[in-house]
């Protein structure tokens, strides 16, 4: 980085007007001679303004800003703690509510069981009654039916005897024989029985 200004300053070609005005760290064009950081005549100025700035910043921070931020943070911490406590309360309440709910649920369930059992018993009793009634009716009908069947059977047997007698008389007559009713009756009766 061959700054011509440096070389020029070393060789003394710089017009001295700029030097007189701006001091010995700046050449006539306003460029830096050497490192501006090492220019001794600027240091006092920098140190003075640095001291002023630091003192002001320090007082602004220690008097206003830092206590305020600390207060904000503490307040937030307090709010958070309160909120957590409130949340704990609510949680306890929720647990209680859950217990009550479970109890109610269990109660309702046992009630329901009872009702179901009662209803079942009632239904069963009704059913039994109806069954018994139906059985009785069925038995009565059956008996009646059997009686009728017996009557019909008896009627049928009698008819069979008469038909057989008539038929036997007719057959005997047809064969040219003469048969009295009594003999035919006896013969038919013995045959039918046999």
């Amino acid at each position, binding site marked *: 980085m061959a*700054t011509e200004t440096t*070389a020029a300053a*070393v060789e003394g070609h710089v017009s001295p007007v700029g030097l007189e005005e701006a001091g010995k760290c700046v050449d006539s064009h306003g460029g*830096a001679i*050497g*490192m501006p950081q*090492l220019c001794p005549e600027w240091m006092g100025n920098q140190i003075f303004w640095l001291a002023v700035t630091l003192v002001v910043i320090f007082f602004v921070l220690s008097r206003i800003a830092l206590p305020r931020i600390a207060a904000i943070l503490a307040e937030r911490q307090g709010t958070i703690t309160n909120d957590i406590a409130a949340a704990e309360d609510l949680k306890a309440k929720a647990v209680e509510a859950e217990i009550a709910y479970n109890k109610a649920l269990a109660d309702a369930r046992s009630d329901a069981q009872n009702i179901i059992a009662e209803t079942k018993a009632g239904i069963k009793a009704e059913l039994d009654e109806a069954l018994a009634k139906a059985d009785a009716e069925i038995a009565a009908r059956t008996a009646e039916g059997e009686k009728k069947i017996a009557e019909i059977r008896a009627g049928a047997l009698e008819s069979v005897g008469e038909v057989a007698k008539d038929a036997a008389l007719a057959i005997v007559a047809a064969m040219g024989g003469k048969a009295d009713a009594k003999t035919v009756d006896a013969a038919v009766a013995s045959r039918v029985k046999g």
Partner: protein
Amino acid sequence: MEGDVVQMGAYIGAGLACTGMGGAAVGVGHVVGNFLSGALRNPSAAGGQTATMFIGIAFSEALGIFSFLVALLLMFAV
């Protein structure tokens, strides 16, 4: 052939001084690399040691800055 021997020497010296920055680069890389290999072995302990890593970086980087400063001084202030 302008300038003089002093200026030539100063510029050569500035160039040589810049090699010191390479050393600082190696040093910083070494610090961070070792930190990283340690941190990957035990990630839970890494968080607390970040500040130490930065202190180490600062110390080794300072030497590179010194050599840079020497270069600048040779170029602009001699």
